[in-house]
């Protein structure tokens, strides 16, 4: 039992799968088909103690929520849909910058009298008073719709669960309005719908998540820390540059760059790891102090001894015991 590998859920198909593989590959963590039964298993060579399971997006969210997975990449929209308790079950470790989608409330564009949720509340009340029926909202996102509508005091509605193309429901007469995800809004527009001004429920993107429900052995936690420190080191490397100067000018160079330490730069031997956006300020300060020659390289990875997300995870798991 103590040797069981860490389980890591990743998307099994589609654009999200490609993007997740790209992200891992960029971190030097290439995914290799593990051959396992019907190709649902994969391996990361650099992390032998991690077992990758290729799953549908919904199954990853469920696996994190129920503790069948230790780690997973999941859209925040699907995670939130697991219910309010998900906050206590799943921890978001890192936003990954892909799989972006907004969960929004959209009404027919022809409702020019409805711009806000407050308008919707009035119109919904008038609808039930007139027809005795409640306005129907087509959505796959029941939990978030209910919470969002309640927070805006909208009560005179009912949800019609949609399984396919939600945005077509109003035109098909199955619902009056919808709650759905959108990236560019083009599909909504093509279906004669518009997003309410204050109708943004969630700005979702893919997140690296950890389950707080799963059983974690010390070894599995160590594997997770290792994965996270690699991911963080790669992300840090992408926004930093390594500035180096001749050893004999170390003293003058340190004095000249002192101010940048407060702005996130860190010391390196005969050099400084600086935030990329302040790079030329650093080089200018060095030139001012007559330090040179100065060379700059962009690192592949920039490791810190501790992983911030790893520490947060360990702390949350510690509270649990």
């Amino acid at each position: 039992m103590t040797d069981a590998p860490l389980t890591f859920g990743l998307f099994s198909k589609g654009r999200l799968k490609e993007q997740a593989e790209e992200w891992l590959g960029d971190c030097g963590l290439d995914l290799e088909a593990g051959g396992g039964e019907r190709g649902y298993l994969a391996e990361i060579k650099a992390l032998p103690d991690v077992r990758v399971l290729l799953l549908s997006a919904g199954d990853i969210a469920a696996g994190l929520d129920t503790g069948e997975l230790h780690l997973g990449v999941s859209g925040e929209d699907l995670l939130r849909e697991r219910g309010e308790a998900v906050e206590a079950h799943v921890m978001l470790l890192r936003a990954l910058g892909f799989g972006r989608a907004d969960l929004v409330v959209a009404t027919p564009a022809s409702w020019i009298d409805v711009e806000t949720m407050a308008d919707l509340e009035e119109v919904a009340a008038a609808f039930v008073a007139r027809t005795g029926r409640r306005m129907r909202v087509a959505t796959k996102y029941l939990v978030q719709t209910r919470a969002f509508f309640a927070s805006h005091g909208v009560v005179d509605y009912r949800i019609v669960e949609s399984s396919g193309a939600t945005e077509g429901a109003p035109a098909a007469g199955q619902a009056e309005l919808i709650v759905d995800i959108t990236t560019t809004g083009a599909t909504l527009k093509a279906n004669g719908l518009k997003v309410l001004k204050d109708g943004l429920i969630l700005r979702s993107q893919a997140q690296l998540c950890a389950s707080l429900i799963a059983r974690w052995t010390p070894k599995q936690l160590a594997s997770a820390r290792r994965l996270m420190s690699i991911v963080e080191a790669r992300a840090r490397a992408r926004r930093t540059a390594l500035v180096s100067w001749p050893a004999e000018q170390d003293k003058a160079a340190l004095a000249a760059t002192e101010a940048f330490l407060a702005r996130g730069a860190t010391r390196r031997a005969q050099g400084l790891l600086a935030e990329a956006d302040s790079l030329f300020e650093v080089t200018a300060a060095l030139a001012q102090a007559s330090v040179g020659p100065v060379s700059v390289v962009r690192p592949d990875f920039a490791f810190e001894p501790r992983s911030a997300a790893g520490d947060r995870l360990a702390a949350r798991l510690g509270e649990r015991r």
Partner: protein
Amino acid sequence: MRLEPPVPADVLAAIRAPFAALAAPFTDAPVMLPLGLMLDLAGETMRGRLFLVQGDGEDACLRPDFTIPIARVHIDRGAGDGRYLYEGKAFRVAPRGSGRAEEFLQIGLEAYGGGRGPEADAEVAGLAWRAAAAGGRDDLSMILGDISLFSAFIDAIGLAPALAARLKRAFVRPGALAGELTRAQAAEPPVRQGDRLAELLAGLPEAEATAVLQDLWSIAGIQPVGGRSAAEIAHRLVQRGEAARAPRLDPAQARLIRDFIDLSGPPRAVLDRIAELASSGRLELDAELAAWTARLDAIVANGAPEGRLVFQANFGRAFSYYDGFLFEVRSAALDDEAPVAGGGRYDLLPAHLGGAARGAVGCAVRPCRAWADAGTPS
């Protein structure tokens, strides 16, 4: 599903006795209801409390109470009037961690066509009290409220229609009214996209306003989909424009409403206080207050001791069909969220179900909560 401990037969018989003494038949009603109907009538907030059942056709749910099942039986019979007793189990998902029973016994009465007078209200309230008290608890009290009294109070102030309607809707939503009062007092609302259009449309006959709106859609390349007609949207734009120009709620009016909803205590004292508020605000409420005095007399005459009655002016419930008088019988030993009995007037429900009736009132008792020796059942 969490069950209740069984109530001993003699206790149950005592609780049932006040109902059984009525000249009304015990009526059976389906355990399952169409989910869509339930959500249409009670709203989406109810969904979390319903046990869903997957059939091979339309989705169904287990009855959360008897009001709708009995109303359907009544309407199917096509009768305008009718009185129905029931005794059976109802099913509700308990809030997480509450430990409450999810499958529980209810005994009750639904009465259609008994008119809208205070006597019909008092009959169900008195009945619920006597049945609840028969369970042996000596710590019961009855909370009284009236959604239509608040509406009458608001109407008497003479606010702009849209504002009055908003306040009435907020009244039945826990915690919503305070925010709505603040909002109603706020400075001028911002000018919005449709406002100039609304001004234009307001000057036109409705048919023309509708035509203008349709032209506008076609110019903007908007394909109208589903739900609401051009006439309806034009109508609301005009209304919205009027509401934006209407005077805000002034501080004296807000004070009056806050004072009203803060009232709670012995019913006659509260009614006196409402009469004072009405006269200070020069509001015409005499008919409503006279009806309440008669209702109180009748409730007491029907067996509920006056010393156990509490009138709470802000008492309204979100997940119910009540639209007028309503009450709950509570035990000091139990959570306020776990009433021993409850009921009220729901005149509009039969019409929404496709029937017609001269008034509808009902009440239900939870025998296991009424049973004094149950410990603290939930």
